């Protein structure tokens, strides 16, 4: 297959895909056809085409796949297409709750509230409604509490490939030594 043809195929898939286009999905779409060129290489080619022709979108690697996104400078115009809730920023409470779930998942509401020291019901609900979190089963212990996890939408929202790409949680000792330093 010619590289040009391959580029067109990948472009078509990028336009139509509802979720990030992964290598596996790409191969599945090609079916029987054998392709020597890795997806990443085709993406690189397309990306440089877009850049040199000054397109309004770029390809972004997210959740271990590729997706077309509009370039940042068009935000002012593009946001007009969406309802207010579409890209509403998360509240402090929601961010804290999300942070706890990201690092501790799967996690129960009780565990979240124990860390935050405050009821987290409404932030959990917001995060579920915005599909950033999902319920994945129940805990084995008494009460069979619901377990929360981050979703693929969470990765998309924060532009991450996996949860491992999140910034490392600081060690307690680290925080302590800094705090003691502040006191001097």
């Amino acid at each position, binding site marked *: 297959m010619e590289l040009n043809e391959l580029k067109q195929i990948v472009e078509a898939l*990028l*336009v*139509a*895909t*509802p979720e990030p286009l992964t290598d596996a999905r790409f191969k599945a779409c090609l079916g029987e056809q054998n392709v020597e060129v890795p997806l990443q290489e085709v993406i690189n080619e397309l990306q440089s085409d877009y850049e040199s022709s000054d397109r309004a*979108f770029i390809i*972004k690697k997210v959740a271990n796949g590729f*997706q*077309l*996104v*509009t*370039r*940042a*400078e*068009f*935000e002012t115009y*593009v*946001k007009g297409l*969406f309802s207010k809730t579409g*890209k509403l*920023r*998360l509240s*402090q*409470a929601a*961010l*804290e709750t*999300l*942070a*706890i779930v*990201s*690092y501790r998942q799967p996690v129960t509401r009780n565990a979240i509230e124990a*860390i*935050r*020291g*405050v*009821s987290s019901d409404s932030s959990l609900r917001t995060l*579920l*409604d915005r599909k950033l979190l*999902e*319920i994945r089963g129940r805990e084995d212990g008494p009460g069979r509490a619901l377990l929360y996890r981050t979703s693929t939408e969470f990765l*998309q*929202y*924060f*532009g*991450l490939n996996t949860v491992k790409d*999140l*910034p490392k*949680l*600081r060690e*307690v000792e680290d*925080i*302590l030594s800094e*705090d*003691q330093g*502040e*006191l001097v």
Partner: protein
Amino acid sequence: MITKSHRIDLDMFEGPLDLLLFLIKRDELNIYAIPIAQITSDFLEYVKLARELKLHSAGDFVLMAATLMKIKARMLLPIEADGDEEIEDPRTELMNMLLEYKRYKEAASAFENIEREERPHYYHIPSAWNPQQEDQTAILEDVKLYDIMFTFQYLLKNYEEPVTHAVAVEEVTLTEQVGFIGGLLQANTRLSFSDMLSKFESRLIVVVTFLAILEMLRTRQIKVKQSKLFDDLLISRGGKFGT
């Protein structure tokens, strides 16, 4: 005493731990050896304010105030040396909670930064139109249990029980309702949950029928579709229907 300059908006704190961290930072206190008497009185001043302002989360603050007072009381008690056993500082647990909370609070602000960076990028999402889609109204194919629960809660809120005066023992079982739905699905390819609901005479039947739906979903006898959250549930035959 809280002087004017110390007066701060309680709403800016996410909870009691957040407030404690603020007090520790403001007064440059040592988190290893928190002066409990001082911090308790400062904390209580704020809680008083919170109660005056009728803040919704005041309950969590009151709980923390009680914890602080308990720690304070324990620190006043003479320590009975009990053999070689090491006596734990009553403040240790609180300190650990504060440190743990601080870690996630920091992570949350890192998240906020990433959010700000990602915000200007909009994803291309293909339009909902898809010629192969059998049902144009059912855009939420992937209905999660959570969606169903909320729809049920919503429908139940709007369900008005007909006023009747006869006293009778209602008996309805899960098996009966599973059979009932199965029967309806033999005759119809699709059922609307809200239509079904309007025919029932009591809340109990509604609830049991809902449980029957969950049960049949679990055993794949039926499929449930929904076009958006809180919208009607459309029930159709599943892969294991009739088995």
